[in-house]
Protein backbone atom coordinates (compact mmCIF):
# COMPACT_ATOMS: atom_id res chain seq x y z
CA UNK A 1 0.00 0.00 0.00
CA UNK A 2 1.20 3.52 -0.78
CA UNK A 3 0.92 6.41 1.63
CA UNK A 4 2.39 7.81 4.77
CA UNK A 5 3.34 5.44 7.59
CA UNK A 6 1.03 4.71 10.51
CA UNK A 7 2.78 5.36 13.78
CA UNK A 8 2.34 6.80 17.26
CA UNK A 9 1.82 10.52 17.43
CA UNK A 10 3.53 13.04 19.71
CA UNK A 11 0.94 12.31 22.39
CA UNK A 12 2.92 9.15 23.12
CA UNK A 13 5.66 11.21 24.69
CA UNK A 14 3.36 13.09 27.05
CA UNK A 15 0.19 12.45 28.98
CA UNK A 16 -2.20 13.89 26.40
CA UNK A 17 -4.44 11.69 24.29
CA UNK A 18 -4.89 12.17 20.55
CA UNK A 19 -8.08 14.11 21.40
CA UNK A 20 -6.50 17.00 23.26
CA UNK A 21 -9.23 19.57 22.65
CA UNK A 22 -8.01 22.02 25.27
CA UNK A 23 -4.71 22.42 23.47
CA UNK A 24 -6.73 23.61 20.47
CA UNK A 25 -9.06 25.78 22.55
CA UNK A 26 -6.04 27.58 23.98
CA UNK A 27 -6.88 30.59 26.10
CA UNK A 28 -10.36 31.10 24.75
CA UNK A 29 -13.03 31.84 27.35
CA UNK A 30 -16.74 32.40 26.93
CA UNK A 31 -17.93 35.51 28.71
CA UNK A 32 -21.62 34.87 28.00
CA UNK A 33 -23.22 31.69 26.69
CA UNK A 34 -26.64 32.44 25.21
CA UNK A 35 -28.08 28.93 25.65
CA UNK A 36 -28.14 27.11 28.99
CA UNK A 37 -30.93 25.38 30.86
CA UNK A 38 -31.89 24.53 34.38
CA UNK A 39 -34.02 21.48 35.02
CA UNK A 40 -34.44 18.12 33.33
CA UNK A 41 -36.36 16.77 30.37
CA UNK A 42 -38.86 14.17 31.56
CA UNK A 43 -38.88 12.41 28.18
CA UNK A 44 -35.18 11.64 27.99
CA UNK A 45 -32.21 10.54 30.01
CA UNK A 46 -29.89 13.35 30.84
CA UNK A 47 -28.49 15.53 33.55
CA UNK A 48 -30.83 16.72 36.32
CA UNK A 49 -29.85 20.32 35.64
CA UNK A 50 -29.57 21.62 39.17
CA UNK A 51 -28.20 25.14 39.38
CA UNK A 52 -25.04 23.94 41.07
CA UNK A 53 -24.40 21.26 38.46
CA UNK A 54 -25.05 23.68 35.60
CA UNK A 55 -22.66 26.22 37.04
CA UNK A 56 -20.01 23.53 37.48
CA UNK A 57 -20.44 22.40 33.88
CA UNK A 58 -20.11 25.96 32.64
CA UNK A 59 -17.06 26.68 34.76
CA UNK A 60 -15.38 23.46 33.62
CA UNK A 61 -15.64 24.75 30.06
CA UNK A 62 -14.46 28.27 30.82
CA UNK A 63 -17.92 29.67 30.37
CA UNK A 64 -18.03 32.58 32.80
CA UNK A 65 -21.72 33.37 32.51
CA UNK A 66 -24.79 32.06 30.70
CA UNK A 67 -28.29 33.15 29.80
CA UNK A 68 -30.24 30.45 31.60
CA UNK A 69 -33.90 29.49 31.31
CA UNK A 70 -35.75 26.91 33.36
CA UNK A 71 -37.34 23.79 31.87
CA UNK A 72 -39.94 23.90 34.63
CA UNK A 73 -41.25 27.11 33.06
CA UNK A 74 -41.13 25.62 29.58
CA UNK A 75 -42.70 22.27 30.33
CA UNK A 76 -44.93 22.63 33.37
CA UNK A 77 -45.61 25.94 35.07
CA UNK A 78 -44.39 29.19 33.62
CA UNK A 79 -44.77 31.36 36.65
CA UNK A 80 -43.10 29.19 39.29
CA UNK A 81 -40.40 28.15 36.85
CA UNK A 82 -39.61 31.75 36.01
CA UNK A 83 -39.72 32.78 39.64
CA UNK A 84 -37.20 30.10 40.46
CA UNK A 85 -35.04 31.39 37.65
CA UNK A 86 -35.38 35.05 38.60
CA UNK A 87 -34.43 34.20 42.18
CA UNK A 88 -31.01 33.24 40.84
CA UNK A 89 -30.38 36.73 39.49
CA UNK A 90 -27.82 37.34 42.19
CA UNK A 91 -26.03 34.10 41.47
CA UNK A 92 -22.65 34.72 39.84
CA UNK A 93 -22.57 33.47 36.27
CA UNK A 94 -26.32 33.30 35.73
CA UNK A 95 -28.26 35.76 33.59
CA UNK A 96 -31.87 34.72 34.15
CA UNK A 97 -34.05 34.29 31.09
CA UNK A 98 -37.80 33.93 31.37
CA UNK A 99 -39.87 31.46 29.40
CA UNK A 100 -43.44 31.56 28.19
CA UNK A 101 -45.76 28.80 27.09
CA UNK A 102 -46.78 29.12 23.46
CA UNK A 103 -49.66 26.73 24.12
CA UNK A 104 -51.25 29.54 26.10
CA UNK A 105 -50.82 32.81 24.19
CA UNK A 106 -53.05 34.77 26.57
CA UNK A 107 -51.09 33.67 29.60
CA UNK A 108 -47.85 34.12 27.65
CA UNK A 109 -48.62 37.78 27.01
CA UNK A 110 -49.33 38.31 30.70
CA UNK A 111 -46.08 36.59 31.63
CA UNK A 112 -44.11 38.74 29.19
CA UNK A 113 -45.41 41.86 30.95
CA UNK A 114 -44.51 40.40 34.32
CA UNK A 115 -41.03 39.42 33.18
CA UNK A 116 -40.36 42.83 31.67
CA UNK A 117 -41.47 44.61 34.83
CA UNK A 118 -39.20 42.31 36.84
CA UNK A 119 -36.26 43.51 34.78
CA UNK A 120 -35.79 40.48 32.51
CA UNK A 121 -33.91 41.29 29.32
CA UNK A 122 -34.82 38.21 27.36
CA UNK A 123 -37.48 35.58 26.96
CA UNK A 124 -36.96 32.08 25.66
CA UNK A 125 -39.36 30.13 23.48
CA UNK A 126 -39.54 26.33 23.36
CA UNK A 127 -41.73 25.58 20.34
CA UNK A 128 -40.41 22.06 19.76
CA UNK A 129 -40.85 21.03 23.36
CA UNK A 130 -44.33 22.57 23.42
CA UNK A 131 -45.41 21.13 20.07
CA UNK A 132 -46.01 24.55 18.54
CA UNK A 133 -45.64 25.29 14.84
CA UNK A 134 -44.27 28.61 13.60
CA UNK A 135 -47.52 29.33 11.77
CA UNK A 136 -49.65 29.17 14.90
CA UNK A 137 -51.16 32.57 15.82
CA UNK A 138 -49.62 32.21 19.26
CA UNK A 139 -46.10 32.61 17.96
CA UNK A 140 -46.77 35.85 16.09
CA UNK A 141 -48.68 37.16 19.09
CA UNK A 142 -45.80 36.50 21.45
CA UNK A 143 -43.28 37.86 18.93
CA UNK A 144 -45.16 41.15 18.67
CA UNK A 145 -45.58 41.51 22.42
CA UNK A 146 -41.95 40.74 23.12
CA UNK A 147 -40.80 43.25 20.50
CA UNK A 148 -43.00 45.97 21.99
CA UNK A 149 -41.58 45.29 25.43
CA UNK A 150 -38.03 45.41 24.12
CA UNK A 151 -37.33 41.83 25.13
CA UNK A 152 -34.75 39.84 23.25
CA UNK A 153 -36.24 36.54 22.14
CA UNK A 154 -34.17 33.38 22.30
CA UNK A 155 -36.03 30.79 20.30
CA UNK A 156 -35.68 27.17 19.42
CA UNK A 157 -37.28 25.65 16.35
CA UNK A 158 -36.35 25.28 12.72
CA UNK A 159 -35.08 28.65 11.53
CA UNK A 160 -36.58 28.05 8.08
CA UNK A 161 -40.00 28.37 9.67
CA UNK A 162 -39.47 30.40 12.82
CA UNK A 163 -37.93 33.39 11.07
CA UNK A 164 -41.31 34.37 9.71
CA UNK A 165 -43.25 35.39 12.86
CA UNK A 166 -40.42 37.79 13.75
CA UNK A 167 -40.21 39.69 10.47
CA UNK A 168 -41.07 43.36 10.07
CA UNK A 169 -41.41 44.17 13.78
CA UNK A 170 -37.82 45.17 14.59
CA UNK A 171 -37.51 42.06 16.71
CA UNK A 172 -34.23 41.14 18.29
CA UNK A 173 -34.02 37.38 18.07
CA UNK A 174 -31.43 34.67 18.57
CA UNK A 175 -32.25 31.47 16.73
CA UNK A 176 -30.88 28.76 18.96
CA UNK A 177 -31.31 25.78 16.64
CA UNK A 178 -29.86 27.07 13.38
CA UNK A 179 -28.30 24.02 11.74
CA UNK A 180 -25.66 24.49 9.09
CA UNK A 181 -27.90 22.59 6.68
CA UNK A 182 -30.23 25.59 6.89
CA UNK A 183 -27.58 28.28 6.95
CA UNK A 184 -28.57 29.68 3.55
CA UNK A 185 -32.12 30.27 4.76
CA UNK A 186 -30.87 32.06 7.85
CA UNK A 187 -28.56 34.24 5.78
CA UNK A 188 -31.23 35.42 3.37
CA UNK A 189 -33.75 35.99 6.18
CA UNK A 190 -31.26 37.84 8.38
CA UNK A 191 -30.03 40.04 5.54
CA UNK A 192 -33.29 42.00 5.79
CA UNK A 193 -33.58 41.79 9.56
CA UNK A 194 -30.74 43.41 11.49
CA UNK A 195 -32.13 42.03 14.73
CA UNK A 196 -31.72 38.41 13.64
CA UNK A 197 -28.86 36.52 15.27
CA UNK A 198 -27.92 32.89 15.53
CA UNK A 199 -26.40 30.58 18.07
CA UNK A 200 -23.24 28.79 16.98
CA UNK A 201 -24.24 25.46 18.54
CA UNK A 202 -25.13 23.63 15.33
CA UNK A 203 -23.13 25.76 12.89
CA UNK A 204 -20.46 23.10 12.82
CA UNK A 205 -19.64 22.69 9.18
CA UNK A 206 -16.08 23.64 8.23
CA UNK A 207 -17.06 27.13 7.07
CA UNK A 208 -20.46 28.07 8.60
CA UNK A 209 -19.11 30.58 11.14
CA UNK A 210 -16.86 32.11 8.53
CA UNK A 211 -19.74 32.35 6.06
CA UNK A 212 -21.98 34.17 8.54
CA UNK A 213 -19.16 36.56 9.33
CA UNK A 214 -18.55 37.23 5.64
CA UNK A 215 -22.20 37.60 4.66
CA UNK A 216 -23.69 39.38 7.68
CA UNK A 217 -20.86 40.16 10.08
CA UNK A 218 -19.61 38.27 13.11
CA UNK A 219 -21.84 40.43 15.31
CA UNK A 220 -24.74 38.14 14.37
CA UNK A 221 -23.06 35.09 15.91
CA UNK A 222 -23.47 34.16 19.58
CA UNK A 223 -21.83 31.22 21.28
CA UNK A 224 -24.51 28.85 22.54
CA UNK A 225 -23.91 25.50 24.20
CA UNK A 226 -27.24 24.21 25.59
CA UNK A 227 -25.33 23.10 28.65
CA UNK A 228 -25.72 20.78 30.40
CA UNK A 229 -27.71 18.78 27.84
CA UNK A 230 -25.17 19.23 25.05
CA UNK A 231 -21.38 19.15 25.15
CA UNK A 232 -20.18 22.78 25.51
CA UNK A 233 -16.77 21.73 24.27
CA UNK A 234 -17.97 21.19 20.70
CA UNK A 235 -19.02 24.78 19.85
CA UNK A 236 -16.08 26.04 21.91
CA UNK A 237 -13.66 23.99 19.85
CA UNK A 238 -15.31 25.01 16.60
CA UNK A 239 -15.04 28.69 17.53
CA UNK A 240 -11.44 28.36 18.69
CA UNK A 241 -10.37 26.72 15.43
CA UNK A 242 -12.42 29.01 13.20
CA UNK A 243 -11.01 31.41 10.69
CA UNK A 244 -12.43 34.41 12.54
CA UNK A 245 -10.06 37.05 13.87
CA UNK A 246 -9.35 37.42 17.61
CA UNK A 247 -11.75 40.35 18.05
CA UNK A 248 -14.49 38.47 16.22
CA UNK A 249 -13.95 35.38 18.32
CA UNK A 250 -14.17 37.41 21.52
CA UNK A 251 -17.38 38.99 20.27
CA UNK A 252 -18.92 35.62 19.43
CA UNK A 253 -17.77 34.23 22.77
CA UNK A 254 -19.85 36.73 24.70
CA UNK A 255 -19.36 40.29 23.54
CA UNK A 256 -22.25 40.11 21.13
CA UNK A 257 -24.56 38.49 23.67
CA UNK A 258 -23.64 41.04 26.30
CA UNK A 259 -24.36 43.87 23.91
CA UNK A 260 -27.62 42.31 22.81
CA UNK A 261 -28.85 41.73 26.31
CA UNK A 262 -27.59 45.21 27.22
CA UNK A 263 -26.47 44.13 30.61
CA UNK A 264 -23.10 42.78 31.54
CA UNK A 265 -23.40 39.97 34.07
CA UNK A 266 -22.75 41.39 37.51
CA UNK A 267 -20.18 38.87 38.59
CA UNK A 268 -18.34 36.09 36.85
CA UNK A 269 -18.84 32.42 37.68
CA UNK A 270 -15.34 32.23 39.06
Amino acid at each position, binding site marked *: *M*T*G*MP*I*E*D*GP*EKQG*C*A*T*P*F*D*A*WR*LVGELEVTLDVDALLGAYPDRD*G*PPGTSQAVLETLAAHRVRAAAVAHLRAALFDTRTGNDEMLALAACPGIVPVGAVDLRDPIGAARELERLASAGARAVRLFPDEQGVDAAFPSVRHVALRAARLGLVVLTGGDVRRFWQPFTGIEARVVFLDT*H*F*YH*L*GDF*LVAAADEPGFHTSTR*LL*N*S*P*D*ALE*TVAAELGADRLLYGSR*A*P*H*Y*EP*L*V*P*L*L*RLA*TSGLGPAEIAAVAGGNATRLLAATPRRSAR
Partner: protein
Amino acid sequence: MIIDVHAHWGPWFFTMDVAGSTLATMDRYGIDRAIVSATEAVTYDAPAGNRVLAAYLETQDRLLGYVTVNPRRLREAEADLRAYLPGGRFVGVKIHTDYTGSPAGSARLREALTLVAGTGRPALVHTWGASVLDLAEVCLDIPGLRVIAGHMGADGFRHAIEAADACDRLYLEPCWSHAPAGRIAEVVAGVDPARLLFGTDATLIDPASAFGAVAAAGLPRETAERIAWRNATALFRL
Protein backbone atom coordinates in the same frame (compact mmCIF):
# COMPACT_ATOMS: atom_id res chain seq x y z
CA MET B 1 -1.99 9.77 15.25
CA ILE B 2 -5.63 10.07 14.24
CA ILE B 3 -7.33 8.21 11.39
CA ASP B 4 -10.72 9.51 10.30
CA VAL B 5 -12.68 6.54 8.93
CA HIS B 6 -15.68 8.60 7.80
CA ALA B 7 -14.73 11.50 5.61
CA HIS B 8 -15.62 12.90 2.21
CA TRP B 9 -13.99 14.60 -0.71
CA GLY B 10 -15.81 16.92 -3.07
CA PRO B 11 -18.48 19.62 -3.04
CA TRP B 12 -21.77 19.63 -1.10
CA PHE B 13 -25.09 21.08 -2.14
CA PHE B 14 -25.62 23.10 1.06
CA THR B 15 -24.53 26.71 1.59
CA MET B 16 -20.90 25.83 2.01
CA ASP B 17 -17.69 25.94 0.01
CA VAL B 18 -15.52 23.10 1.23
CA ALA B 19 -14.64 21.11 -1.88
CA GLY B 20 -10.99 22.02 -1.63
CA SER B 21 -10.63 22.01 2.13
CA THR B 22 -10.29 18.33 3.02
CA LEU B 23 -6.62 18.45 4.00
CA ALA B 24 -6.80 21.87 5.66
CA THR B 25 -9.74 20.68 7.74
CA MET B 26 -7.78 17.61 8.83
CA ASP B 27 -4.80 19.76 9.74
CA ARG B 28 -6.84 21.91 12.13
CA TYR B 29 -7.36 18.88 14.37
CA GLY B 30 -4.20 16.90 13.82
CA ILE B 31 -5.94 14.24 11.76
CA ASP B 32 -3.19 12.43 9.94
CA ARG B 33 -5.15 10.27 7.55
CA ALA B 34 -8.72 10.02 6.37
CA ILE B 35 -10.67 7.45 4.43
CA VAL B 36 -12.90 9.40 2.09
CA SER B 37 -15.77 8.80 -0.26
CA ALA B 38 -16.53 11.10 -3.16
CA THR B 39 -19.56 13.29 -2.49
CA GLU B 40 -20.63 12.84 -6.10
CA ALA B 41 -20.59 9.08 -5.61
CA VAL B 42 -22.56 9.24 -2.37
CA THR B 43 -25.25 11.69 -3.40
CA TYR B 44 -25.66 11.14 -7.16
CA ASP B 45 -23.57 8.94 -9.42
CA ALA B 46 -21.41 6.28 -7.77
CA PRO B 47 -19.24 5.27 -10.76
CA ALA B 48 -18.58 8.87 -11.78
CA GLY B 49 -17.66 9.84 -8.24
CA ASN B 50 -15.45 6.81 -7.74
CA ARG B 51 -13.63 7.64 -10.95
CA VAL B 52 -12.77 11.23 -10.04
CA LEU B 53 -11.78 10.19 -6.53
CA ALA B 54 -9.45 7.54 -7.90
CA ALA B 55 -7.66 10.17 -9.95
CA TYR B 56 -7.40 12.53 -6.97
CA LEU B 57 -6.06 9.87 -4.63
CA GLU B 58 -3.09 9.45 -6.94
CA THR B 59 -2.02 13.03 -6.20
CA GLN B 60 -1.43 12.79 -2.44
CA ASP B 61 -0.73 10.27 0.30
CA ARG B 62 -2.86 11.26 3.30
CA LEU B 63 -6.20 10.11 1.94
CA LEU B 64 -7.43 6.62 1.27
CA GLY B 65 -10.68 5.88 -0.48
CA TYR B 66 -13.98 4.12 -0.12
CA VAL B 67 -15.49 2.68 -3.26
CA THR B 68 -19.06 3.90 -3.06
CA VAL B 69 -21.70 1.37 -3.97
CA ASN B 70 -25.29 2.06 -4.93
CA PRO B 71 -27.25 -1.08 -4.01
CA ARG B 72 -29.62 -0.33 -6.90
CA ARG B 73 -26.78 -0.65 -9.40
CA LEU B 74 -25.02 -3.85 -8.44
CA ARG B 75 -23.53 -4.49 -11.85
CA GLU B 76 -21.79 -1.10 -11.75
CA ALA B 77 -20.81 -1.77 -8.15
CA GLU B 78 -19.19 -5.06 -9.02
CA ALA B 79 -17.17 -3.41 -11.78
CA ASP B 80 -16.01 -0.62 -9.49
CA LEU B 81 -15.01 -2.97 -6.71
CA ARG B 82 -12.97 -4.98 -9.22
CA ALA B 83 -11.39 -1.86 -10.68
CA TYR B 84 -10.41 0.03 -7.55
CA LEU B 85 -9.91 -2.24 -4.55
CA PRO B 86 -6.86 -4.14 -5.82
CA GLY B 87 -4.87 -0.93 -6.33
CA GLY B 88 -4.44 -0.23 -2.63
CA ARG B 89 -5.66 3.36 -2.60
CA PHE B 90 -9.23 2.24 -1.87
CA VAL B 91 -9.50 0.24 1.35
CA GLY B 92 -13.23 -0.12 1.97
CA VAL B 93 -16.74 0.31 0.64
CA LYS B 94 -19.24 3.07 1.39
CA ILE B 95 -22.99 2.63 1.22
CA HIS B 96 -25.41 5.43 2.04
CA THR B 97 -28.80 3.93 2.76
CA ASP B 98 -30.80 7.16 2.41
CA TYR B 99 -29.34 8.65 -0.77
CA THR B 100 -29.81 5.30 -2.52
CA GLY B 101 -33.20 4.50 -1.00
CA SER B 102 -31.83 1.24 0.38
CA PRO B 103 -32.79 0.85 4.06
CA ALA B 104 -30.67 -1.34 6.30
CA GLY B 105 -33.33 -4.02 6.35
CA SER B 106 -33.84 -4.10 2.58
CA ALA B 107 -33.06 -7.01 0.29
CA ARG B 108 -31.01 -4.80 -1.98
CA LEU B 109 -28.71 -3.68 0.81
CA ARG B 110 -28.30 -7.31 1.83
CA GLU B 111 -27.27 -8.17 -1.74
CA ALA B 112 -24.82 -5.29 -1.86
CA LEU B 113 -23.22 -6.27 1.44
CA THR B 114 -22.94 -9.86 0.29
CA LEU B 115 -20.99 -8.55 -2.67
CA VAL B 116 -18.78 -6.50 -0.36
CA ALA B 117 -18.12 -9.46 1.91
CA GLY B 118 -16.58 -11.26 -1.04
CA THR B 119 -13.94 -8.54 -1.33
CA GLY B 120 -12.75 -8.97 2.26
CA ARG B 121 -12.99 -5.22 2.78
CA PRO B 122 -15.07 -3.44 5.46
CA ALA B 123 -18.18 -1.49 4.56
CA LEU B 124 -19.13 1.87 6.06
CA VAL B 125 -22.93 2.01 6.13
CA HIS B 126 -25.00 5.04 7.08
CA THR B 127 -27.16 4.33 10.14
CA TRP B 128 -29.69 6.47 11.96
CA GLY B 129 -31.98 5.62 14.85
CA ALA B 130 -32.91 1.97 15.15
CA SER B 131 -31.61 1.08 11.67
CA VAL B 132 -28.31 0.09 13.27
CA LEU B 133 -30.09 -2.97 14.68
CA ASP B 134 -31.14 -4.01 11.18
CA LEU B 135 -27.55 -3.61 10.05
CA ALA B 136 -26.36 -5.92 12.83
CA GLU B 137 -28.89 -8.53 11.76
CA VAL B 138 -27.76 -8.37 8.13
CA CYS B 139 -24.12 -8.56 9.18
CA LEU B 140 -24.79 -11.65 11.27
CA ASP B 141 -26.35 -13.31 8.24
CA ILE B 142 -23.42 -12.66 5.88
CA PRO B 143 -20.31 -14.67 6.79
CA GLY B 144 -17.10 -12.69 6.95
CA LEU B 145 -18.68 -9.30 6.49
CA ARG B 146 -17.33 -6.46 8.64
CA VAL B 147 -19.41 -3.31 8.81
CA ILE B 148 -18.95 0.12 10.34
CA ALA B 149 -22.19 1.66 11.53
CA GLY B 150 -21.75 5.25 10.33
CA HIS B 151 -22.87 7.81 12.94
CA MET B 152 -23.43 4.83 15.29
CA GLY B 153 -27.13 5.45 14.85
CA ALA B 154 -26.85 9.20 15.67
CA ASP B 155 -29.75 9.69 18.09
CA GLY B 156 -30.08 5.90 18.18
CA PHE B 157 -26.71 5.40 19.88
CA ARG B 158 -28.24 3.17 22.53
CA HIS B 159 -29.43 0.90 19.73
CA ALA B 160 -25.84 0.95 18.47
CA ILE B 161 -24.63 -0.42 21.79
CA GLU B 162 -27.14 -3.24 21.45
CA ALA B 163 -26.14 -3.82 17.83
CA ALA B 164 -22.45 -4.03 18.67
CA ASP B 165 -23.26 -6.47 21.43
CA ALA B 166 -25.26 -8.62 19.02
CA CYS B 167 -22.66 -8.76 16.24
CA ASP B 168 -18.90 -8.90 16.84
CA ARG B 169 -18.17 -7.86 13.24
CA LEU B 170 -19.96 -4.54 13.64
CA TYR B 171 -17.90 -1.44 14.42
CA LEU B 172 -19.05 2.02 15.49
CA GLU B 173 -17.92 5.50 14.53
CA PRO B 174 -19.47 8.55 16.20
CA CYS B 175 -19.84 11.46 13.80
CA TRP B 176 -22.97 13.60 14.08
CA SER B 177 -23.66 17.31 13.93
CA HIS B 178 -25.34 17.11 17.33
CA ALA B 179 -23.44 16.43 20.54
CA PRO B 180 -25.79 15.43 23.34
CA ALA B 181 -23.96 15.25 26.64
CA GLY B 182 -22.52 11.90 27.60
CA ARG B 183 -23.23 10.08 24.30
CA ILE B 184 -19.66 8.99 23.69
CA ALA B 185 -18.98 7.98 27.29
CA GLU B 186 -22.10 5.83 27.33
CA VAL B 187 -21.15 4.02 24.14
CA VAL B 188 -17.57 3.48 25.26
CA ALA B 189 -18.82 2.05 28.55
CA GLY B 190 -21.09 -0.41 26.75
CA VAL B 191 -19.07 -1.61 23.76
CA ASP B 192 -15.96 -3.75 23.25
CA PRO B 193 -13.18 -1.14 22.89
CA ALA B 194 -11.75 -3.02 19.91
CA ARG B 195 -14.78 -2.02 17.86
CA LEU B 196 -14.75 1.73 18.33
CA LEU B 197 -13.44 3.96 15.56
CA PHE B 198 -13.12 7.69 14.94
CA GLY B 199 -15.05 9.39 12.15
CA THR B 200 -15.95 13.03 11.49
CA ASP B 201 -18.12 13.26 8.35
CA ALA B 202 -15.79 16.03 7.17
CA THR B 203 -16.04 17.99 5.05
CA LEU B 204 -19.79 18.01 5.59
CA ILE B 205 -19.36 18.34 9.34
CA ASP B 206 -16.34 20.05 10.87
CA PRO B 207 -14.22 17.60 12.88
CA ALA B 208 -14.87 19.79 15.95
CA SER B 209 -18.11 17.91 16.43
CA ALA B 210 -16.75 14.38 16.74
CA PHE B 211 -13.35 15.44 18.09
CA GLY B 212 -14.93 17.59 20.78
CA ALA B 213 -17.48 14.95 21.73
CA VAL B 214 -14.80 12.29 22.10
CA ALA B 215 -12.56 14.69 24.01
CA ALA B 216 -15.44 15.54 26.33
CA ALA B 217 -15.73 11.88 27.29
CA GLY B 218 -12.37 12.14 29.06
CA LEU B 219 -11.23 8.71 27.94
CA PRO B 220 -8.09 7.04 29.24
CA ARG B 221 -5.22 7.23 26.80
CA GLU B 222 -5.29 3.57 25.85
CA THR B 223 -8.97 3.74 24.88
CA ALA B 224 -8.48 7.05 23.10
CA GLU B 225 -5.64 5.61 21.03
CA ARG B 226 -7.72 2.60 20.08
CA ILE B 227 -10.46 4.92 18.85
CA ALA B 228 -8.05 7.35 17.25
CA TRP B 229 -6.14 4.89 15.10
CA ARG B 230 -5.26 1.49 16.47
CA ASN B 231 -8.61 -0.13 15.70
CA ALA B 232 -8.74 1.45 12.26
CA THR B 233 -5.27 0.19 11.46
CA ALA B 234 -6.33 -3.34 12.34
CA LEU B 235 -9.70 -3.20 10.60
CA PHE B 236 -8.39 -1.76 7.34
CA ARG B 237 -5.03 -3.56 7.59
CA LEU B 238 -3.14 -0.29 7.12
